[in-house]
């Protein structure tokens, strides 16, 4: 692999999170679409399955991917549409990582105890 600096890792993470989120989106639309079968349909069975702890940890990863991909997307927009974005892209990337962490911590504080408590 090309051993680039921060810019390359920003790109790789953007790619990986983007592909993961696109695939998650397809699955998410499919399972929410099951509400069309009504209250006695397969929706509740599916959701009960997804409410098991491994999938809820997966959901934390989805949220982390959303926050990173969104904030790094803002960085890309700044790089493309401002005169100074590229000059500060490395600092902006560390800003993205810091903000992702800052947003992630309260989410973890809210969600992790819910998972540890088990069933809703």
């Amino acid at each position, binding site marked *: 692999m090309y051993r680039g600096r921060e810019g390359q890792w920003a790109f790789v993470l953007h*790619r990986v999170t*983007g*592909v993961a*989120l*696109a695939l998650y*989106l*397809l699955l998410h*639309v*499919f399972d*929410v*679409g099951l*509400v*069309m079968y*009504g*209250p*006695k*349909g397969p*929706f*509740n069975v599916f*959701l009960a399955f997804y*409410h098991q702890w491994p999938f*809820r940890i997966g*959901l934390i990863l989805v*949220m982390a991917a*959303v*926050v990173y991909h*969104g*904030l790094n*997307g*803002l960085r*890309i*927009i700044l790089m*493309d*549409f401002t005169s100074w974005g590229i000059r500060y892209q490395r600092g902006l990337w560390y800003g993205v990582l810091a903000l992702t962490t800052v947003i992630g911590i309260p*989410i973890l504080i*809210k*969600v992790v105890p*819910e998972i540890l408590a088990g*069933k*809703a």
Partner: protein
Amino acid sequence: MAARPRTLEQARATYDTNRELAWWVFMRISGFLLIFLVFAHIFFNNIQINVATVDYAYVAQRLSKAWVKVYESFLLGLAMLHGTNGLRYSIEDYFKRPSTRFWLKAVVFTVAAALFVIGVMALWAFSYQQMGDAINAAGHGG
């Protein structure tokens, strides 16, 4: 497939609009809007409540509100286009064989289009308030 243009003049004659430029612009505009749409969507459904309490009743109640239908329609449309185009970029970057690229893209576009239709139907084709009654009625009335 038409012959590939070999000179700048031929290329200009062939591509009078720059489709890839349009997608490039779209990815940035839709990406910017999706930040707000997705963050709020996650906040409402994963943070404000315990996501393990989500069930049919929760979703049906949500989807019976007009503003939710409109909001989720924008989210569905923008996210599907943004995500599918992103998958296309990835396929074109990592798969060299033309036949592999073609079939991967064919599968991704087909699945995405089908799920978009499913999403639109889930949002607009049902009155969730009356869903339970409708199902019972359908069982009797055929």
